[in-house]
């Protein structure tokens, strides 16, 4: 619970500033990315018979989720 720049008196940071608990949202983005693109990769892999597409989809989802986290929280 540090580095959020907020106090018990209310939010005194401009809107859009990440709060400490944004860290929890980050984990749900990473899981969401892996589930979605892992799922897409698995389905295409089943369709084409290329089993390696499932881990490829997982990694792609992880990368895209990281990009999303950067766009959402790490930009000034």
């Amino acid at each position, binding site marked *: 619970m540090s580095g959020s720049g907020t*106090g*018990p*008196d209310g939010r005194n940071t401009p*809107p859009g500033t990440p709060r400490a*608990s944004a860290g929890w949202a980050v984990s749900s*983005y990473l*899981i969401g990315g892996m*589930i979605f693109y892992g799922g897409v990769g698995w389905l295409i892999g089943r369709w084409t018979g290329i089993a390696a597409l499932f881990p490829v989809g997982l990694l792609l989802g992880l990368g895209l989720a990281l990009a999303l986290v950067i766009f959402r929280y790490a930009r000034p």
Partner: protein
Amino acid sequence: MSDVAVSTTASGCHIFTGCGYPAPSISAFFFKPIFSIGAFHFTKPMLLALLSAAIVLIFFWRAFANPQRVPRGAQNLAEMGVLFVRDQILRPQLGKKGDRYLPFLTALFFFVWVMNIMGIIPLAQFPATSKIAFPLALTLMVWITYITLGIKYQGPLGYFKNMAVPAGAPWWILPLLSPIELLSNLIVRPFTLTIRLFANMLAGHLLLLVFALASWYLFSASIGLLFAATSFVMTIILTGLEVLIQALQAFIFTTLTAFYFADAMETSH
């Protein structure tokens, strides 16, 4: 006590008697019904959840029934509890405009906390939150509330549009990112909120059972006595750890609820 614990302690099953260690299993989380009405079985976790609700309700009712300007006794304690939820959970997430959700968050925090604490209260000795239905029901309430808040503050279209379009991302990557955003906000969030509380309480209860049953199993007039003593000390230490985790999980559950509310109310992403 659950059936597995009863059968272990009643059978006199000890080390060096040709009897294997009766490890606790998931059957420790299923209880014989106290009474049944047709297909509805009333079990111990339900009783403990009702009891927890009653404890929270009666405590706060009594504390604030006749409020004094200078608080004493129960009122003092209850005010400390409400101020803790306001200053440590609500205000850091929602700011002053979130004060109207203070009753909900206070009730949520104390209900979850008391249900968790039931895991180490003698005779109760079971956290109702280690049955997934209880955290799931609470999460459904939170989920419906934050989606309603989002629609109320950002409009039905605006809410889902703001959710699907993260600011600052270049347009060509949006089709790839929007599914993650929607899945994360609408499915993964409630799912992880449920699982975090449920799994922590299940693991904690199982851990205490392992060492409590081992203390009894290793108890015999041999070197086993030393093992039993060690196991008993572990039970005490882990009970202390559980006290910490029970409070922490109630805190995290409520903090995340406040964060989801704040996220839904915020219009400028």
